[in-house]
């Protein structure tokens, strides 16, 4: 589904953010991306749908390499959800926001409406179509933010710290939601308990490199490894 080969990225100011990343993510595979702040998690996510373009190396999404001609299809394939729902939800109402992606895919309006309703139903936010994001709780906004990309029916979801700042109940709801979604996922997080529950595979980034890539159980059970990468035991 997603294939990163020898991906390198250097910020314009010269900081090396990603160094020789190799990753393969299969269809429907749920992968946690962990590591300290500044390890390059967000930078890596921004590459997955071509917002940042790799300086060297290559990324293919569903068999298509990311290039100028394929960028629109790639963005329909990779649903990117940002950490702050106030950035993700920029329209005055929930309906407008969830309809934004499908409308820009050029679908007809009947189809768009259907997709909006289905996406909101999937995240358990039916009936919120006319609400304004400002009047909703953080947990609700996070759910709607996920609906805004589900309506584009992507094959991969890329989520940036989805459980950050949520109260226990909203976090529980989010975990159940992530488990129920059939899409492949790459999720950056510090929430190791969520990793244990949702993600069979974990990738640890440290200083822009893949430091560990394997079954989550292997790293979650290894105190020394967790210590080394500054991670918490769940």
């Amino acid at each position, binding site marked *: 589904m997603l294939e990163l080969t020898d991906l390198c990225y250097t910020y314009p100011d010269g900081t090396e953010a990603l160094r020789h990343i190799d990753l393969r993510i299969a269809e429907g595979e749920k992968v946690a991306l962990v590591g300290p702040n500044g390890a390059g998690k967000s930078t890596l996510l921004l590459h997955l749908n071509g*917002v940042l373009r790799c300086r060297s190396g290559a990324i293919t999404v569903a068999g298509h390499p990311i290039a100028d001609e394929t960028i629109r299809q790639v*963005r329909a394939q990779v649903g*990117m959800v940002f950490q702050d729902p106030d950035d993700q939800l*920029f*329209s*005055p109402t929930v309906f407008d926001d969830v309809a934004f992606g499908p*409308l*820009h895919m050029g679908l007809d309006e009947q189809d768009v*409406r259907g997709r909006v309703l289905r996406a909101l139903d999937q995240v358990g936010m039916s009936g919120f179509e006319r609400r304004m994001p400002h009047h909703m709780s953080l947990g609700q906004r996070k759910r709607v933010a996920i609906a805004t*990309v589900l309506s584009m029916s992507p094959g991969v979801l890329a989520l940036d710290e989805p459980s950050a700042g949520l109260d226990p109940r909203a976090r529980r709801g989010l975990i159940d939601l992530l488990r129920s979604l059939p899409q492949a996922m790459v999720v950056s997080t510090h929430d190791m308990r969520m990793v244990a529950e949702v993600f069979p595979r974990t990738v640890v980034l440290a200083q822009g490199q893949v430091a560990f890539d394997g079954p989550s159980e292997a790293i979650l059970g290894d105190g020394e490894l967790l210590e080394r990468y500054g991670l918490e035991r769940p």
Partner: protein
Amino acid sequence: MTLSTSTLDRYIDGQSPIHGLDARVKLLLALAYILAMALLPPGAWTGIAVSAALLWWVVLRSEVGLRTIITRAFVALPFALVAVTLVFTRPGAPILRIPLGPWVLTATDVGLTAFVSIVLKSWLSVQAALLLTATTHFTDVLYALRALHLPNVLVAILSFAYRYLFVMIDEGQRMLRARECRSAELPGRRGGGSIRWRAGVVGQMVGTLFLRSYERSERIYVAMLSRGFSGELRTISPRALSSVEQGLLLVGGATMAGIVLVSYFV
């Protein structure tokens, strides 16, 4: 959060027929009303009275409360008071002389008529606008503007402003609160610093707020790109107005036109 919503959101929830009316119809009727107010000649007391009665009748049917609308409309009065100069500048029969040192201000009947007309007409216009915003969600007003072919870019600017005004106010309030929490004083010492220093702090806060908003705008743009934005804003097209709604528009527009015409020729 409470402050920002109560001061900015003028919508008052209700189930009245006015609430249920399509936003386009309400917007057009409100615009027609305001246009008619602007066109009414000075001293057309009957016209003004009929228009006021008409508006208040609608207000009474809207569950919003006549009192609310009328008191909120006083906000605009200070602006109308600018017209007070008309009382002394329009030529006409003098009714009052106010000596001001070497000058004498002479109030004329024509001037007074013009002034009172302007105050009443602007007061009513503001009431019409208030009724619109009290019975229509701002988002519906945006839909209406788009449906009435206001350029898409302008509608988008308005809708972003509306969406992020609240976010910015919250951000500003959090900063003010943080400053408050660290504005401590030691016993026996005058705290607070000089005015110059405090002004500098406020300036830095404004600058920070600007930078944060600027950075947020970049993140929003990336979020839009990620969902396929390519520079063109697409929206769902509005449904056609029903014949009842079209009729309502026609009747409302004709009534206001009638009031203006009668005021001129009678």
